[in-house]
């Protein structure tokens, strides 16, 4: 282990600095330069994050790669970083996704290229900060900062209704997080002046404040995940966002909500979490069934995938509140897998959108005749989205269902309906878009995917299959942390 080397700082600040460098290339005259720096920077960002996995000690449940420096001495605020088995895979996922979104925007984005590319790199660093902060003020700073690049990505490079979507996205999520800040300030008082998340984990709290804190956290995290009924910003944001923005939103930003539950809600207010578990499970199951049904009748491809995304995230929150190892690890696997699959699905829609400039399912049909290679990739990802065994989509859902049946058969029953609904909306989409006779002259003129698109989709295809066939290496790093968390949640703090 590289003792004392500030690896996490590097993982956070390297992309941010390179992002600023990309900004500095200026106008669109230097677009090739901006693209080049962005791709090098994002790949570099992934490479420097790899030691987080290779040097990680899976036997430890404590924080690793810890860095701690005083930031504001007067308020006891620290620059305190560290990762465990829950946050490390999410950081890797984030660093893995950034080069893909940079590549996805390679030829498609022609205006303000440097700002676009830079925003993604800065975003990548900020999100790494969210996942590794162990100080609430630091965390909150990163958390709110992450809104800005995304707001701009939707608001500047988005579709026709982008302003409504961007503001809806911003206000929805901001509103949620303000109550989280109030909770942090309460915890600061209750812990006699500490902003350390790890201190809060061991802070005894009576049940009433626990419930209030839980609800404050809930609003912040539920909006991000998003959980029913605070999910309606997501379809709008996705529809208007450029492809890269959708990928980042689905693959990474939603995971911030899931991560929040694991880092804050469960360990800080375990009694309230247990007390309100029934409600959380109910909301999650509504997400799985209700949203799964709503996805069926969508006419806009991106909206359909956005709804499918919400349904899949329902498995994540369901897994958290089952309080057993299957559920919790299944939820973690589901987060990572959803990162791959939703990214791939949005990229596939992006490939079509770049060619026909339409997201309406009705405008397509018979695409396979013109784009066989693309159709093969899309088939793989559609099947992964439908949770086919052998793809990553199966692993998380399987584990969560196994966990759910231990708690209550009917939870598992409702959750397992995704086997039917998930397949129904995904395959129906695939049938209408890909299969059939060539539907229009526009489809007739389609060209199969380029080498660049092939590379992106191939990388994701390998990831989806690898995680489906051999998920062992991923779950291996989580065990210690998850077991510790389960023990922790089982102990009352009252």
């Amino acid at each position, binding site marked *: 282990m590289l003792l004392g080397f500030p690896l996490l700082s590097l993982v956070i600040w390297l992309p941010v600095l390179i992002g600023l460098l990309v900004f500095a290339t200026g106008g669109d005259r230097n677009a090739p330069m901006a693209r080049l720096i962005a791709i090098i920077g994002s790949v570099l960002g992934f490479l420097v994050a790899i030691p987080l996995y290779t040097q990680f000690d899976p036997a430890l449940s404590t924080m690793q790669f810890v860095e701690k420096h005083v930031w504001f001495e007067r308020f006891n605020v620290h620059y305190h970083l560290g990762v465990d088995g829950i946050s490390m895979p999410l950081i890797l996922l984030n660093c893995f996704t950034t080069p893909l979104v940079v590549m996805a925007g390679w030829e498609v984005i022609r205006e303000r290229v440097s700002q676009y590319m830079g925003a993604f790199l800065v975003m990548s660093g900020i999100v790494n900060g969210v996942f590794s902060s162990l100080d609430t003020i630091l965390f909150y700073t990163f958390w709110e900062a992450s809104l800005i690049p995304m707001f701009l990505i939707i608001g500047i490079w988005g579709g026709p209704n982008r302003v409504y979507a961007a503001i*809806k996205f911003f206000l*929805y999520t901001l509103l949620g997080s303000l109550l989280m800040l109030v909770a942090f300030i309460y915890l600061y008082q209750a812990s006699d002046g500490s902003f350390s998340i790890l201190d809060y984990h061991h802070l005894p709290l009576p049940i009433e404040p626990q419930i209030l804190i839980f609800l404050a956290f809930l609003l912040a995290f539920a909006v991000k995940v998003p959980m029913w*009924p605070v999910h*309606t*910003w997501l379809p709008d944001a996705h529809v208007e966002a450029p492809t890269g923005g959708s990928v980042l939103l689905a693959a990474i930003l939603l995971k911030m909500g899931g991560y929040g539950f694991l880092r804050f809600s469960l360990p800080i207010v375990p009694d309230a979490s247990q007390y309100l578990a029934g409600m959380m499970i109910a909301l999650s199951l509504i997400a799985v069934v*209700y949203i799964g*049904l*709503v*996805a*069926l*009748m*969508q006419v806009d491809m991106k909206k359909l995938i956005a709804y499918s995304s919400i349904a899949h995230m329902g498995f994540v929150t369901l897994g958290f509140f089952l309080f*057993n*190892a*299957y559920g919790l*690890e*299944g939820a973690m696997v589901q987060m990572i897998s959803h990162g791959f699959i939703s990214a791939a699905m949005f990229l596939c829609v992006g490939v079509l959108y770049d060619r026909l400039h339409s997201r309406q399912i009705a405008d397509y049909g*018979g695409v*396979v*005749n013109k784009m066989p290679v693309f159709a093969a990739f899309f*088939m793989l990802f559609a*099947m992964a989205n439908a949770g*086919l*065994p*052998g793809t990553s989509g*199966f*692993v998380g859902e*399987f*584990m969560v*269902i*196994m966990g*759910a*049946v*231990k708690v209550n*058969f*009917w939870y*598992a*029953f409702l959750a*397992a*309906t995704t*086997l*039917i*609904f998930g*397949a*129904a909306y995904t*395959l*129906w989409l695939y*049938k209408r878009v*890909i*299969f*059939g*006779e060539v539907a229009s002259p526009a489809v007739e003129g389609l060209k199969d995917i380029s080498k660049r698109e092939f590379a992106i989709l191939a990388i994701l295809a390998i990831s989806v299959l690898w995680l489906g*066939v*051999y*998920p*062992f290496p991923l*779950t*291996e790093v989580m*065990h210690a942390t998850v077991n510790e968390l389960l023990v922790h949640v089982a102990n009352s703090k009252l």
Partner: protein
Amino acid sequence: MQTLYLLVPLAPLIGAIIAGLFGRFIGRTWSHRITITLVFVSLVASIIIFMDVLEGNVFNGSVYTWLVTGDTRFEIGFLIDQLSATMMVVVSLVSLMVHIYTIGYMHDDPGYQRFFSYISLFTFSMMMLVMSNNFLQLFFGWEAVGLVSYLLIGFWYTRPTAIYANMKAFLVNRVGDFGFLLGIALVLMHFGSLDYATVFANAPQLADETVELIPGLPWLVISVICILLFIGAMGKSAQFPLHVWLPDSMEGPTPISALIHAATMVTAGIFMVARMSPLFELSEAALSMILIVGGITTLFMALVAVVQNDIKRVVAYSTLSQLGYMTVALGASAYSAAMFHLMTHAFFKAVLFLGAGSVIIAMHHVQNMQQMGGLKRYMPITYWTMFIAAVASAGVPGFSGFFSKDAIIEAVGFANIPGFEFAYFCVLVTVFVTALYTFRLIFMTFHGQPRMDAHTKEHLHESPWVVTLPLVVLAIPTIGAGWFIGPIVFGSYFDGAIHVLPQHDAITQLGAEFTGVFGMMIHALSTAPFWLSVAGIFTAWYLYIARTDLPEKIKRRILPVYTLLDRKYYIDEFYSWLFAGGSRALSSTLWKYGDIKIIDGFFVNGTARVVAWTAMFVRRFQTGYIYHYAFSMIVGVFILITLWLYQY
């Protein structure tokens, strides 16, 4: 030997990858050469393993750890015993024949390499399914064969009927898988493991445990598990009411109808229940359900076959009915008879399908039997192999189908599980119906006057050797496989792989009366099934050769019954109204009212509107005129003083 185990599934997988990813570069000839060689390797390995198993070498071990969570290890591993070895040989043999046949059948298709890739991938998936030593891998294979079936039904993806049929097949199968996965979840919960060996060893201890899924209604845990698992089998093996996908799957190319939708994949459900015999034996409720479901499928699907005119659909409904036979056998605890019928059926049904395909090639892709007739003269090899298969299917003594079917009928007669009378009635009557529809097919296609147009008739000729060779090869076990009934069904062949409780053991009772294959044939001459079968063949001859005007008259006489059968009891219409229509309506309602009107319209945009209204209202006080501010202050002070005065 363990390397050989790996070779069986991996060889076809490698073939699938080469033909699938590099098919465009290596060309058509090399694609089929490579895949066929690798499937042949798989067949040879399977046979060697089969011989080894016959010597008593059973293997149970893991290959790699898939996942560890909590205190459970999920492994990928193999269980090689009589059950899996039998399936391996059947699957690889039929698969090899279908691979060879495909060279002829798909000769002019632009998707040639893709087709080879898919059928090799299917072989891999099916091998993983049958070789598994745990529920998880079983589910992997289970879904993987479903995927390949989906891809192959929709192989001609520009046909609207094909892409509707493949989606339907996948979704109906998913309904079954829904139950199957819940069953697996309950197994994991109650046994703490998904390994067959652990689960089966601990099953008896769970025999009396109950669970209240609905409060106040205690159920045996084992019954709940078995019924859920069987729902999975109903999907895959197309049992009523989840049978609707199989007839539509005929939209796929004929080789896969033979391989997937007749010989191998659809029997996965039968194999699964036989594999789980230590669990199913403990649940009389589940066995009873299996008997009744199987009985309904056997009889009612056979009746539909009688009125079909599409040659492939006749064979498809025949498959449904034969699967019903196997299911009934399972319900009667005659697992070995079910497995035996699975094997003989795989051979004779593959011949029927491949023969039908040969006819379709000759007829230039016309499938309507009303436009055929008299083909015997032009295609003797196809005719004779199909004739053998038809005789076997109808259960004429000496041919494979006779032995396996007779064993099932007798075993059901000996069973004592509730519902066996109904099942016995169904399987018995169906003997007549089976002989009728099978020979109706033979007579309408090969005998009588040619009814095709002149152009087609001119070009009629026997299919090339790549098509007829598989027919001949598969015709051999169609005749001969039945003669092994002694050791396989009544002997000790499946000992250790299949468990039957003494009180359910109809097969042993039957075995006590078994005096060898000749004895069985002679005994059959004095029993109902034989005469029913003869009557069926005679009726077919009378209606379709002797008095060809009669079918039309009968049809007019019993028009309502005919229509009911022709429309397949209106089940498709009912499902598409209730499930497809229902979920679409529900979906629209939830979306338009739940999401758009209530959440977004009322709460989200409503909040925004309230903020806007408040701002508009408050703005009126911010006029900039000092007397407005002064007035507001006075009102404010007045209100505050009033409140202060009245608070006591």
